[in-house]
């Protein structure tokens, strides 16, 4: 399943400056694995050593923060938009 992943500024060193890249996978976990295969190292910036989403990263599939859905098991249907965003904003 092809999905589009929006990359935050601080991770664009991994994507040669690209703000948006495509990846594949049926769930967010698979999408992030594919992303890391294409851009080695980027996965470790989004996930911590135990494989969980880092506490200062927000990940969205479509409009929804995946913490409200099924986390890394959130389905990523064909054409989904995945966004990775630093959490330390606002207030």
């Amino acid at each position, binding site marked *: 399943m092809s999905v589009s992943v929006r990359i935050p500024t*601080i991770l664009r060193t991994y994507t040669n400056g690209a703000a948006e890249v495509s990846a594949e996978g049926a769930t967010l976990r698979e999408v992030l694995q594919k992303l890391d295969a294409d851009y080695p190292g980027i996965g470790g910036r989004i996930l911590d050593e135990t494989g969980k989403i880092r506490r200062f990263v927000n990940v969205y599939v479509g409009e929804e923060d995946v913490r409200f859905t099924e986390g890394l098991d959130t389905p990523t249907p064909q054409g989904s938009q995945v966004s990775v965003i630093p*959490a330390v*904003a*606002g*207030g």
Partner: protein
Amino acid sequence: MVLKDARPFGPATGLSCRECGTVYELGPIFACSECFGPLEVAYDFGEVRRQDIESGPTNIWRYRALLPVPADVASKPNLQPGWTKLVKADNLAAELGLRSLHVKDDSGNPTHSFKDRVVSIAVEAARTFGFHTLSCSSTGNLAGAVGAAAARAGLDSCVFIPANLEEAKITMAAVYGGRLVGIDGTYDEVNRFCSELIGDELGEKWGFVNVNLRPYYAEGSKTLAYEIAEQLGWRLPDQIVIPIASGSQLTKIDKGFRELIKLGLVEDKPYRVFGAQAEGCSPVSAAFKAGQDVVRPVKPDTIAKSLAIGNPADGPYVLDIARRTGGAVEDVDDREIVEAIRLLARTEGVFAETAGGVTVGVLHKLVRNGVLDPEAETVVLNTGDGLKTLDAVAAEARPTAVIRPSLEAFRTAFAN
């Protein structure tokens, strides 16, 4: 001859990650590229003396030696916020059974909320970085503060709010002439939008006060700590009750108190920090009560819209601080918020916005539950003006009577 101090960020030396300690040069960045943790301003203060502060202006710039701003900041066009009243609240103290209580009343700022403090620091950073447009995601008060500060500084502004905010906050955000964009969604969705805009060409050369300027902006809340201590006669309070939206303000007040101790400006003593949330948006309070150190986001539903952040960026630090200092995080429901607004108004003549109702309501609840020490010196924050959230009390705060202009009518109306 004394050389003029031309450092654009004064005593600030860099940005350091609060999570992993990685150090960066001062720049318009906000998240650690190693771990996404929040970046904080690091300083080399040197010696700072009480008399130098006391001889400064009666606004936050008296603390310029403790902030990331140039030495001549007071002469630049900005709103000069701060030095708001610390009200000795004897009537409210008596009603609640407290020995000593003060209300730090930040409704007295230029745009009637504490946000002028943080925005003023962000404006100086925006100038230094050469940004032409000032922006933010806002629950209301910040949008007005940014609009006003940009107008004074001669910058453009474009601010983003949830479209369903209180009328007064929308009017205040729009009146200063910048662009105001309402977004159909919650604050957290507005915030997400801004975080994406910042990585896009559309947002280039924009200073988002609470995104890419957030490390500087957040430091402004330290001035609440400095002022409270100075106004108490260079002493720290024993207990303080602070509202929680993103948690940044509480985190920075704690940082301010610790800096004062470290610099020898106040005596080192324990103080307890209490956080206040509205029940309809209480992710930090829920995590505190459950003994967790991570905050699970919620979808807010409360009349305290200025605190309606369901995914608070500094939530984990609030939990750390409340636990470290022997404090707590508590919440009150909308009914209690309205009652607390009226209680503060009736006892002290201070008309708070809903966020102030949350802090006073939580203060009341903590006293009732025996969590706060009634003998200890206590400070509670009112961070905004009741005129901005009139709807909260408008149905109840009505004329006692409406009569014809005659003594007889008055006598009849008040016969009993």
